[in-house]
């Protein structure tokens, strides 16, 4: 377990250092004007934000896959990301330009709303499957309300603003977003860490885990808080970024002992690494307008995931785990 963590930390530090130089302008302290300013006010917060958002998504994916005992689970299943996106869309109605704080605060409120709904449902349903279905219903509801809000957008400009924002990006982010997302994400990962023993017990199935003292309502509470904090703050500062939560735990799992508890920290590190790499690539690509990070990750992620599934089918005849 410690070796992948060490390797990932090492890779993260190297890529982090490199990413600070990469971009539309390749930083060269001798010749680039305002090099120090670009580094401190643009590149550094952007890189840190990429790591933060990716780490939150990776850890949330690892926890969700452990909870649902399914390698195809994704943090989006709880409906918290659509809830946060709905909040963000609502903020456009109140004038996006009014205050830079408006959007993230609305998004966090949306995530909190979805979390509150989930918490109301948690413990009242029979088990994991019903609770997950409830989460998916919240996701559909938030998605539908979001489409409604977009279709009634006050003007065409606002509409395109919303749609573009939803695609997810880290362009022109500042320290403000880092200060908002980093503490919340760390707190969220801590919630997953608190749930690690219960997630491990679920290896044996629901009944055996409960006989070992796992309380489903407590586990659900940690997961709701964790996903809310990581994914909610991620959406609040970067829009919707897909695939990270699904792919990263997959990639990391073979290098661990496969216990859900062993997967949380490496998945956070690998998620941070993946988003940081993707965001650096997006910056370097010579496109007219910068490719949206959310689109780029899906473009890389979906085919890669298909390839992975093909490879796994050859390797295993049985389950995906």
């Amino acid at each position: 377990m410690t070796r992948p963590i060490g390797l990932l930390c090492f890779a993260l530090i190297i890529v982090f250092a490199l990413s600070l130089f990469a971009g539309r302008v390749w930083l060269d302290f001798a010749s680039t004007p305002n090099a120090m300013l670009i580094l401190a006010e643009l590149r550094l917060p952007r890189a840190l934000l990429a790591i933060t958002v990716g780490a939150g998504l990776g850890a949330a994916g690892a926890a969700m896959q452990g909870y649902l005992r399914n390698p195809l689970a994704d943090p989006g299943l709880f409906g918290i990301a659509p809830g946060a996106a709905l909040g963000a869309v609502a903020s456009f109605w109140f004038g996006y330009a009014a205050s830079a704080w408006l959007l993230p605060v609305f998004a966090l409120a949306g995530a909190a709303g979805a979390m509150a709904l989930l918490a109301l449902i948690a413990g009242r349903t029979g088990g994991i499957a019903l609770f997950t279905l409830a989460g998916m219903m919240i996701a559909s509801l938030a998605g539908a309300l979001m489409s409604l809000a977009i279709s009634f957008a006050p003007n065409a400009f606002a509409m395109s603003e919303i749609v573009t924002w939803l695609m997810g990006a880290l362009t022109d982010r500042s320290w403000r977003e880092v200060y908002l997302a980093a503490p919340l994400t760390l707190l969220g990962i801590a919630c997953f860490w608190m749930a690690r023993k219960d997630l491990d017990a679920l290896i044996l199935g629901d009944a055996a885990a409960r006989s070992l003292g796992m309380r489903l309502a407590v586990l659900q509470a940690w997961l709701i808080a964790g996903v809310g904090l990581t994914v909610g703050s991620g959406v609040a500062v970067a829009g919707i970024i897909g695939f990270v939560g699904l792919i990263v735990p997959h990639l990391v799992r073979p290098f661990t002992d496969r216990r859900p508890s062993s997967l949380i920290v490496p998945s956070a590190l690998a998620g941070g690494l993946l988003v940081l790499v993707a965001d650096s690539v997006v910056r370097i690509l010579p496109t007219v307008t910068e490719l949206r990070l959310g689109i780029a990750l899906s473009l890389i992620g979906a085919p890669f995931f298909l390839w992975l599934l093909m490879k796994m089918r050859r390797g295993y005849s049985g389950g995906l785990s």
Partner: protein
Amino acid sequence: MTLSADAISLANRLDAVSASFGPGQITAICGPNGAGKSTLLSILSGLLQPDCGLATLHGKALSEFSSGARAQHIGYLPQNGEAAWDVAVRNLVALGRMPHGDSAAGPVEAALKALDLEVLAARPISELSGGEKARAFLARVLAGEPEWILADEPLAALDLAHQLALIGHLKREAQSGKGVIIVLHDLALAMNHADRVVVLDQGQAVADDVPEKALAGEVIQRVWGVTAEWIGSEGHRALVTR
């Protein structure tokens, strides 16, 4: 030192079932499909709350125990255990330490040794055969060092040799002073290996005695609707139907 069910009822499943279980012996719960065997075991392990009646441990209601304290006393082995993730056998067995909040190597190694899993300890669970898997899941229960072992059809998916081996392990645990309660389908296994048998029929306890009496021909006739008799000598009996 008893685990008891006092007039336990659960809608459509159990009807005022009372039974008391003692340490140091194997009690088998038998009955036709749908008689409520697994339900009774779930209630005795504290996983299910009865509508009325009380499951008690040492005279105290199970519902009054915290989930962690209850788990330290009672180990529960569900039917058809499967591991969700392909972990190593030792890690799977170590999950049994959860009620104690540690991963003490001593009890884990002792459980691996007791079930002859030492050579397989580092192997992923998916590489094990059915019989080896059944042993690994039982070892998980033993690692928690519970006073009570409640197992739901632990022998169902095993071939004859593995059935005998696993029941041998359970017998050894009973001889060391633990209370073992198992749901059994195979009446001959219950007859030959249990110290006591509780027969359930349509949610009611209809017999509760030593195997010779609880599984006597007339009980089998009444409960299963099958005319049958036992042949062979004590401890080696076989059921012959007519």
